[in-house]
């Protein structure tokens, strides 16, 4: 994480703090997170010898995120998170950094209006402001939890929320007639400040504003109206272009009971527009708008669930226009644009080749993850995610989706099935449309319960299959299939001590066209790609849970890729990992 500028962030806290310094009933408490991390990476069996890369290399650090909560008055809290990080090998303070990682002041005015200033975690709906899950995370076993915990924590991913800096407020009203509640929420944030392009050219500030109104209409019906706008403030920069990306969404939900079932029906839709404003002030002319796209989306879904929750379904239809652009909902977590170097052995085969990204990088390199909202569609890897690379808000898709959950009454096992069939609405580079199919399933068996053992024995197996095809013109034909298999075991061999093992394997064959876009998101060209990839991670280790908040994990992994390409050799590596994590 880059060091943040302390003064602007501390200022609100100091102002509030000094204004309330006369209070005598201040309350201060602490919590936080501590982590010790050590990894040792080593070369595995390689297709071609690699004499220039070190045979093994190690890296590690200790860090402490100390959260200070100060309650200077009733209904008011100032929160600061200070990070002390010491890289292994640092000596006499070298390699030690101290950063302010988060700052926030929050409170409730007159017991009615809640507010927060500083670092906010914001989410609205899947089509306006939402942080969709990263690729290949579905079905992942408990053995990789230490990696995922780090990736999510270091990138501020909490419950599909984006971490943004700004101000937020909400309040609600209750009524006793047909309208039971009215809930209001509004925020204004600055995802990115002005940045220098040259000594005289600066990008404008990127802001995101939003608001919601929701109402419970009677006992069964709920109505929501959302609005967000991702925009740039021209006067804060010296470039002559600025973004505008407003999105509105309306939805209505109704919950009915039918015998042993409750059924929630929902319909929602929205409209998005994106354009850039080109300022002609210097020439004395009026502003003009360019690179304009607009589109709508609509989704109808039903969610029946048995009252005992042993069965639940989630199915529906969705249409997202090709021109529907929502920066707050379509920004990807994974930044596969190539701007972030891989952390482990970025080159191989005597530094002749840049190592292609592998499944292990997605799990172990928190640096390939993104924390910044993007106004344009980010690059994605069709092998990792091709059906819905931008989550449910992926543009140019229409189709049906289905999810089935089945749970054993005594919790011995549960099964989840996901499926979807989508197609493009307009072709890319050809009038022919791609067809997408998605099928995923997961069975989790708590064998310990079934067999009546006192200790935990959990086994899970999952599969995730994506299929993309396009027929018609042979030059533009697409046929890509991808399968991911996850198998994991978590066995308690002694009190709180777990033996863990996991296999994750990805196979992909076929061809696709990579879409290249310009800075305004318009398609520039297509690059034909052939894939014949087999990617694997094998892992085994021990997990000791001191408590729910404290664990130590040591694991040994082998990972690599087989590329079936005579010009690009295969690669294999090993990693020993130790993590000691404490949630204070």
């Amino acid at each position, binding site marked *: 994480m880059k060091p943040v500028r302390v003064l602007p962030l501390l200022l609100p806290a100091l102002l509030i703090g000094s204004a309330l310094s006369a209070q005598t009933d201040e309350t201060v408490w602490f919590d936080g997170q501590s982590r010790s991390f050590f990894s040792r990476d080593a070369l595995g069996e390689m297709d071609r010898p690699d004499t220039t890369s070190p045979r093994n290399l190690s890296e590690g650090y200790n860090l402490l995120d100390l959260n200070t909560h100060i309650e200077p008055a009733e209904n008011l809290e100032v929160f600061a998170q200070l990070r002390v990080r010491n890289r292994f090998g640092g000596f006499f303070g070298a390699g030690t950094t101290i950063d302010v990682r988060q700052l926030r002041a929050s409170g409730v005015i007159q017991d009615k209006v809640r507010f927060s200033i500083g670092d906010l975690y914001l989410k609205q709906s899947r089509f306006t402001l939402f942080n969709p899950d990263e690729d290949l995370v579905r079905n992942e076993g408990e053995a990789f939890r230490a990696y995922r915990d780090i990736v999510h924590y270091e990138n501020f991913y909490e419950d599909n929320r984006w971490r943004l800096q700004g101000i937020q407020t909400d309040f609600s009203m209750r009524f006793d007639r047909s309208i039971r509640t009215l809930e209001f929420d509004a925020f204004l944030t600055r995802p990115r400040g002005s940045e*220098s392009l*040259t*000594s*005289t050219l600066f990008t404008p500030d990127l802001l995101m504003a939003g608001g919601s109104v929701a109402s419970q209409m009677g006992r069964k019906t709920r109505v929501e109206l959302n609005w967000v706008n991702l925009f740039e403030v021209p006067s804060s920069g010296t470039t002559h272009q600025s973004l505008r990306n407003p999105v509105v969404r309306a939805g*209505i939900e*109704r919950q009915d009971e039918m015998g042993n079932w409750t059924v929630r*029906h*929902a*319909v929602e*839709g929205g409209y998005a527009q994106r354009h850039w404003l080109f300022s002609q002030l210097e020439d004395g002319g009026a502003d003009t708008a360019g690179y304009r796209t607009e*589109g*709508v*989306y*609509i989704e*109808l879904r039903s969610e029946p669930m048995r009252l005992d929750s042993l069965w639940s379904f989630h199915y529906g*239809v969705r*249409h997202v*226009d*090709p021109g529907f652009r929502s920066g707050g909902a379509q920004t990807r977590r994974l930044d596969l644009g190539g701007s972030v170097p891989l952390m482990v052995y970025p080159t191989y085969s005597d530094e002749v080749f840049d190592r292609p990204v592998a499944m292990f990088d997605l799990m172990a390199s928190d640096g390939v993850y993104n924390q910044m909202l993007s106004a344009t569609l980010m690059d994605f890897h069709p092998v990792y995610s091709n059906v819905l690379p931008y989550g449910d808000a992926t543009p*140019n898709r229409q189709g049906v989706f289905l999810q089935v959950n089945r749970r054993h009454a005594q919790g011995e096992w549960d099964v989840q099935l996901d499926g979807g069939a989508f197609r493009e*609405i*307009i*072709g*890319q*580079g*050809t*009038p022919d449309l791609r067809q997408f199919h998605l099928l995923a399933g997961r069975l989790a068996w708590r064998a310990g319960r079934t067999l009546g053992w006192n200790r935990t024995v959990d086994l899970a197996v999952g599969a995730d299959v994506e299929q993309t095809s396009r027929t018609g*013109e042979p*030059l*533009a034909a697409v046929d890509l299939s991808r399968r991911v298999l996850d198998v994991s075991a978590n066995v308690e061999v002694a009190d709180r001590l777990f033996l863990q093992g996991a296999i994750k394997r990805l196979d992909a064959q076929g061809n696709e*066209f990579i*879409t290249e876009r310009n800075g305004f998101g*318009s*398609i*520039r*060209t*297509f690059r*034909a790609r052939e894939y014949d990839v087999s990617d694997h991670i094998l892992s085994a280790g021990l997990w000791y849970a001191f408590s729910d908040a404290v664990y130590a994990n040591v694991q040994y992994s082998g990972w690599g890729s087989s590329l079936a390409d005579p010009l690009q050799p295969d690669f294999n590596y090993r990693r020993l990992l130790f993590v000691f994590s404490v949630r204070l």
Partner: protein
Amino acid sequence: MNTLRIFLIALGMALGLYACSTEEFEGPSIVVLLGEFDILDSLRVTDSNPDFSVNDVVGFHAEFNKEVDWTLVIEGVTTGSRKVITGFSSRLDSNAVVWTGGTSQVPFFTTEDCTVELTVLDEPDTMRTELTVAGTRVFEGIPVADFEEGIPEEALVFHQFSQNMTFEVAQDDPLMGANYFKMGGRMGWNEWMLGQIDFPLDLSAVTADAENFYLNLGVLSGMDGALATDQYVNILISESTAPFNDNTFNNGADVFTTDMEVYKYQIRPVDWIGWRYVAIPYSDFEVKSQGGDNVRTPADISAIRLQCQSCPSANANCPENADVDVRTDIDFVMFTENAPLLDQ
């Protein structure tokens, strides 16, 4: 069911909007991209006799049936100088694809005939035309030295007194104009530094920051096709406010001592034969001595030192250098703002 009715109405509206779309597909046609390449309009220039000294601009035009990776190469028949322009498009727009007389690879163009070739990646066709440079480009920047009037009067030259030491202006192989400055020789004892030239500077009018402020200079190397091992140009830039040359008894300017704000960069190794033109952003200079605020501020630059250094043959450091003359000659030393000189 009311919900279903609402949904059907909304779906109808959405599909209605979709139906209004007149686009057949997004982006360029894949069939055309992967199909047969065709030249719709061959290469043309807007001015075949440009005089770049009066800011003439040459535009290039061509059209293809699809978007391609193209490369345009202008090569001087006399100097061998090359200007390379690349792009990805189906059309070379003569308003956008232009040449203002600069070069991608030194030597610089002179008044000469040039060949122009346009090639397309993975296609065998080459489009050709010719033009004649009537006047050469005058580059924008802050000159340090071009040696056309000899060694600048205020500059200080020092060199060791060993074998074949040449720290003087010469005319036999200039990069630009008629003169250049030779820095070379052969060290007979265990000493890395052969010699240097110091220039006082006043850059107080500069507004660029260190990332956007470039030192540009040509470096000539290779005596009779031979290269000394680990020869290099050591560059010191001073932001000291001390007088440039109060002490006339030392071997150079007074503003590079260890208690002053001095930054260093090494063009190392100089392992090429002929001229090469180098551009270094000031932000790439490292702190040599911590005499100031350690903030590289172009407007505060007060002097620059260019040193010729090499691994000595004595004491078995680089014995192979005993029979080779070091050569790191320089020419056309200039600062530029916002972009390297060759990008102009």
